């Protein structure tokens, strides 16, 4: 599977591990709940770590852990739910998170430009070409 990272199509190097599944090898991403419950075990994992955040979850809970995380996934279940945009802003700009912020789930290709402007730099999507296209929709903006 491919994803968009920094506007380029690249191979995906991450595996999302469901809460009830055994940890996979390589780079793994888990839910915020699992991260909080199994943090010590996860830190011992060989490979990079990521956390997936739902729109209703508070990113401030992750602030102290950010240096340990190479990926934060914003899981979008409904494209109309714009909380993910503020979550991305808080992670990238307030907390100066340097790792990958990835949009996953049910968002519109046409929202990718806004996501890129609040700090999201990677996109998982069934419509990769369409998504990649929209990243250059605007050359000017006011904010």
């Amino acid at each position: 599977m491919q994803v968009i990272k920094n506007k380029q199509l690249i191979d995906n190097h991450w595996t999302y591990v469901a809460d009830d599944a055994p940890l996979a090898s390589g780079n793994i991403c888990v839910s915020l709940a699992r991260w909080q419950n199994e943090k010590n075990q996860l830190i011992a994992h060989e490979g990079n770590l990521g956390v997936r955040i739902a729109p209703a979850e508070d990113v401030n809970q992750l602030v102290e852990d950010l240096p340990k995380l190479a990926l934060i996934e914003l899981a979008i279940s409904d494209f109309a739910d714009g909380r993910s945009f503020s979550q991305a802003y808080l992670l990238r700009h307030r907390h100066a998170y340097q790792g990958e912020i990835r949009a996953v789930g049910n968002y519109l290709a046409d929202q990718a430009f806004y996501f890129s402007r609040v700090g999201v730099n990677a996109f998982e999507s069934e419509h990769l070409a369409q998504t990649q296209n929209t990243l250059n929709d605007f050359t000017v903006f006011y904010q």
Partner: protein
Amino acid sequence: MYQYNHNDQILIEERVAQFRRQTEQFLNGEISEDGFRALRLRNGVYIQTHAPMLRVAIPYGLLNAKQLHTLAHIARTYDKNYCHVTTRQNVQYNWPKLEQIPDILAELAQVQMHAIQTSGNCMRNTTSDHLAGVCADEIEDPRPYCEIIRKWTTLHPEFDYLPRKFKIAVSGSTTDRAATQFHDIGLHLVKNDAGEIGFKVFVGGGLGRTPIIGQVIRPFLEKKHILSYLEAVLRIYNLLGRRDNKYKARIKILVKETGLEKFTQLVETEWALIRDNLEVSDDYFAAMKAHFTPFDYDKHAAQDVTFAAHTQENSAFATWVKYNTQAHKVDGYRIVFLSLKAPDSPPGDLTSEQLDAIADLSVKYSFGEIRSTHRQNFVFADVKQADLFALWQALAVQKLATPNIGMATDIICCPGLDFCSLANAGSIGITQDINNVLDNLDYLHDIGDVNINISGCMNGCAHQSVGHIGILGVDKKGVEWYQFTLGGSSSNEAAIGERLGPSIPKSDVAGAVETILNVYVQIRLEEESFLETVKRVGIDPFKEKVYASH
């Protein structure tokens, strides 16, 4: 008025290209119905009962002649030769074809206009006082601030998918003519004890199903902090506003459920973290103010004697001057209202011919600028008194000189069941009925200031809850009935109307209005307005008479 710079122009052209692509992808089946709905709404395109509706933004209600000619051209070329002026100072087209909307947007872009964020759950067009810059009671002209806010709200990446729509209004005068206390954020320009200009910030006001008067969240905000404060409010709202129920998703519900004190604390805490990074510089304020400098007024305008003579000789002209014009801050000039409420046409509608005529008249008599008002009329803000007689004659030919500004036939009315897929009941027909019973001009003028607002459903697009007389269409088993409220006001003494009693069948609505006004005429004290009488006596005397025969 504000003129686009290079980047402003590029931005709207890129938005046209983006919307064109989105529309093509939708028509080719590459974007889902739901997905396209979210995208088109953010560009003012609704799907209505009969056809798509396109709402065009008029930032803070300010237009120039060239733009008006373009609106006329669009009505003629892409629609049924007319457009509709809304209560938020915008313009709507009711019959465009979806596949032609990108072309319409391209035409608008050529005259620095767009439809960005005129609908959808995002930050909407910033509205303001239609008398900005020309009224005597102004603390400072709000328009430069409106333009700063317009830019900041346009395509804001973080706040375009809010829980619900979000409206900001700015007033620069002691009299609130922009209904600021019924907006998600209301901003009043104020002066503090040190003589510095800032904003009194109201939050959580709104109309619709649950009308609520906005509350003061900050009595004085230094103007340099305007954008950071807005950002703080929007971030709290975006993260905490309810998304489980669209009827509880406006910021007014968040403020109510959180409590003003706690909400204020959340905003102030957020603001403290960002305010130093987003200050508006004095240079930027100055650059924006330079777009709104006063016109080069004729110093000798007041020396004209023809105006007084015409007023004496022609009583119809004198009546029009009395009701449709107001004092200007410059001696020898007057502010002229163009009534879009002629008795025989739907309130707020304008034909292409009227739009072109207004544009030409504005060039001849009012520096080529036109304003739209939230009561769905137009304004020529800067007319020399010597020109009033000729202007009146020209407006009369276009049926734009009905002397009823602020009177009972200056009705705010939504499109209603005739056009809108949300409506439960007709509203335009009711307006016609009311016009028919109030066809005596002397009687109308004797009644004086009465705001009648008619909405065809609970969404309240015509702001019926703040009408002095509010009329709300409801559906009862497929039959149109109308709920009356009395005593609402969107001005400084903001108030939500009180329910008069059970709803009234369509055939009795105009009669009920007549009865209410007759009660007022009988019980009013000297010089007392309708609203003042309702405040003094309550609704009982009106209720008694309206329901006497039922």
